[in-house]
């Protein structure tokens, strides 16, 4: 039964996914185990790469390679200034290992974005094949934007979405083709000087997704993008902007896996979501960066009247993750939800959480965070619930559950509740425990060995969140967690 989790066939047909991998022979399983973790790096064949470090000329050359208009270059340059002025956060994970001078800020893997898989370079294709992307596409995915290094190299969108006026493209293309939309919304949710890493992203951003869903359009299948880091010492600064116009719906799915490298990489994305009146946006992420990546992401959404924003956020891998998806409930009756999973293994620090700011009456929010620490890993929940003065009928509910699997590991919980209003109901609870012996014993009396029983309990612990993911992502998450649990990764 366990062998099933060695499979690298990441996305199986939903129907047979449970059984295919279990038929693998032991040898094959072992080989795949070695392969696993997407730790296969192909020779670096990037077409253009800036030098290490960041300065005006690097920013200018990034901008000119993208043929950007002057206003975007100006934006990048003032962001660079902000990046230099901002200090490093004095809280959260230890970031002293980041050497900003030793990072490539831009690499362009192929000359142009392709529209067909066959046209992609062989090594890129091979990496994708192992990740199972073509299968994913076959499975009614609304569109696939796959990011290899910094640039959107592959793009597809279903015809019917295009017909509805849904835009799903790279932010570079959006800057050129939809400058009005970009000017109106870009950097409005997360200002260029929001924090040091958002400023760095605003200066050096490259790749990502731009999604616009017109009024009243419901995108009924998830839109997906894969992000991959491939060049050593290469920081990835993708930029995602999602605009859901009035009464629309979209579910955006992002998964990240990175190959193993010996020296540290920096991933610092910015994701902005604008959910206009009556719309609903769900953003699901599973990140499995390799264990040398600093993953410092700023994600923030604004929900207008009656809108709903949901972040589903799974964090595995990486060396340090600092990520607190935020929702600003700006419109009356808006609702925000954050579902967060963190899994910290040895040498890893998952500093994750959620930030909910209530800015209007009748707003509500729910945060559910689950974390697992093992082999000396550190997982921290860090969250904020803030209610502005004078608001009426505000409800917030935060639940944090943490499992600690061994005595070497650490679990921290830092919830901040800043309540400036009276007509509120704010609840927060957190629990930290290990797998209870009663539960283990019960499962063992049913014939499972201790490892299997532990896995089952961990899966059950995460189940409420895993259920929120699309089938293939739920499958992937389950597999990744089983791998982490077996110690075959780490």
């Amino acid at each position, binding site marked *: 039964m366990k062998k099933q989790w060695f499979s690298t066939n990441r996305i199986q047909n939903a129907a047979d996914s449970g059984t295919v991998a279990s038929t693998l022979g032991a040898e094959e399983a072992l080989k795949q185990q070695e392969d696993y973790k997407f730790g296969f790096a192909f020779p670096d064949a990037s077409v253009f790469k800036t030098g290490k470090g960041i300065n005006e000329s690097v920013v200018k050359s990034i901008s000119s390679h993208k043929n950007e208009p002057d206003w975007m270059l100006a934006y990048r340059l003032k962001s660079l200034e902000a990046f230099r002025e901002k200090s490093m956060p*004095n809280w959260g994970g230890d970031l002293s290992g980041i050497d900003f001078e030793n990072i490539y800020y831009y690499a362009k893997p192929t000359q142009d974005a392709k529209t067909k898989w066959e046209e992609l370079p062989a090594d890129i294709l091979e990496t994708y094949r192992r990740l199972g992307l073509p299968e994913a596409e076959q499975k009614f995915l609304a569109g696939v934007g796959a990011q290899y290094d910094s640039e959107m190299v592959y793009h597809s969108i279903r015809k019917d979405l295009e017909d509805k006026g849904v835009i799903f493209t790279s932010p570079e293309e959006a800057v050129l083709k939809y400058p009005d939309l970009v000017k109106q919304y870009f950097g409005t949710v997360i200002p260029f000087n929001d924090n040091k890493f958002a400023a760095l992203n605003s200066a050096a951003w490259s790749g990502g997704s731009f999604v616009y869903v017109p009024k009243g359009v419901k995108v009924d299948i998830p839109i997906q993008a894969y992000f991959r880091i491939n060049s050593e010492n290469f920081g990835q600064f993708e930029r995602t902007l999602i605009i859901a116009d009035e009464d629309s719906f979209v579910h955006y799915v992002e998964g990240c896996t990175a190959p193993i490298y010996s020296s540290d990489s920096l991933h610092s994305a910015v994701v902005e979501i604008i959910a206009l009146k009556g719309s609903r946006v769900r953003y699901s992420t599973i990140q499995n960066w390799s264990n040398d990546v600093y993953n410092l992401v700023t994600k923030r959404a604004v929900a207008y009247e009656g809108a709903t924003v949901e972040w589903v956020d799974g964090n595995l891998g990486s060396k340090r993750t600092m990520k607190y998806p935020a929702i600003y409930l700006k419109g009356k009756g808006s609702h925000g939800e954050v579902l967060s999973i963190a899994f910290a293994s040895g040498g890893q620090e998952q500093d994750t959480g959620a930030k909910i700011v209530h800015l209007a009456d009748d707003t509500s929010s729910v945060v559910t965070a689950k974390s697992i620490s093992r082999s000396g890993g550190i997982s921290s929940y860090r969250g904020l619930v803030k209610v502005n003065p004078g608001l009426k009928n505000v409800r917030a509910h935060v639940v944090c559950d*943490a499992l600690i*699997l061994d005595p070497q590991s650490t679990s921290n919980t830092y*919830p901040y509740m*800043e309540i400036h*209003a009276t007509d509120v109901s704010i609840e927060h609870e957190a629990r930290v*425990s290990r797998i209870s012996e009663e539960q283990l014993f019960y499962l063992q009396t049913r014939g499972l060995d201790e490892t299997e029983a532990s896995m089952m309990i961990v899966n059950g612990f995460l189940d409420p969140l895993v259920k929120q993911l699309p089938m293939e992502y739920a499958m992937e998450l389950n597999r990744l967690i089983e791998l982490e649990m077996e110690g075959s990764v780490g």
Partner: protein
Amino acid sequence: MQSQDSAVKVEKIASFTHQGIAALDQLIAKRLGNGEDKLINALRSKAALRAQQRAWPAADEEEWRRSRLSAFDFDSLLYGYDGVANLQSSDALIPDFLCKPVDPLDFDGCAELQSDDFSGMVKVKLGHSSVEYSLDVKSKGLYVGLLGDKSVPSALAAKALNILEDMIARSDNRFQSWNLAAYDLALLVCVEKNQTIEKPLVIDWQLSGEDKVLHGLVIVVLEESSSLTVLEHQSGSGGFLLNDGRYANVAANAQLNWNLVRNVGDEEVVVSHGHIVVERDARLKFAQSELGGGWVKTRLATDLAGEGADVHLEGLYFGHGSQHVDLRTVQNHLAPRASSRALYKGVVRDEARTIYQGLIFVAPGANKTDAYLNNRNLVLNDGARADSIPTLEIRTDDVKCSHGSTTSKLLDEHLFYLQNRGFSVKDAKAMLIEAFLGQVSGSMSELVQTKIQAVVLGRVEDV
């Protein structure tokens, strides 16, 4: 029966005119000149060095982020006193914050209390240019005195000195070190091994002084298998900074029950640090009510240092007017099989702001820890603000740790129910607020409950 018959001494010394941290060395030298014990004086210098090496806590320190000091100039405050108080006899009066209700169910005034109802009574007046100190201790095994005098047996005094030395070494911010360097007097409270002190010890602080800094310090030593209840009250006004400290060691199997009621004027600034070490199978119950002070910042840390230690921390606060009340508790689980509970309940109204920051820390190896932390806030009007930060840091797996926090208004359903039963809105609100805080105040000594209730009722009258 130990007899330190009722004693009082009033000592007046010309005001020491030097100000702030800069004058610490002079202050300490002057104390040495006034005959302070050399060892004690040397400890003051150690603490002074720590205070001088640090800046005032800044907003980038998490613990101080919500309580900015920029409005104050602590370096301009005058020290009130530079001598060493002595002990003389007098009849101590029963402090008026104590009340034994004639009928707890139908409040009808206080029954008369006798000094025999207490194991001891201490009154300390701080401020102006004098320290007044009166003492009345009548229980076998209980010793109360000042650090440096002879009223406490030397073995116990040595333990108190150890606590002082340890806390100086561990003091981690300028206020705490400052207090340990400049305390006007250090009150020692010690209970001998195997002595159960049935009746409570009363400590009554009467504070005054304008532009003064008052440094109170209490050190409690409970030897093995002893027990003691302390009822402590602070009152007074005038425009001072009270920077006080409370340190204790509760030895194996001992029990310490401490009720602190702080009800100084709304102009006063209060900074307070406490650290209590609880050893094997010992119990601590510390209940804190913060009713007064314009700007209050406190920290109470507990070390569950021995197996089976048991700690209960309770807090009650009511912020009104423009009060700023920032309370921190720390439950440090350092040994296995220990359990701790913290329950802090607060009401906030007007423009007041309250902050509660709690921490449960579980060290590696502190297996079978059972810890809980609970903070509940009631916000009565817009403009009032309650921050709640209950945190956990868990470094081992075999634990049961959780926390909860709620913040809400008075529920319409509850008000409606009481109105249905014939209560006016005003009475219903008062009743609900009283009941909300009653969970904490009700677990405090009956003798201090009436005072707390009276303050609370005074504040809910016009809600």
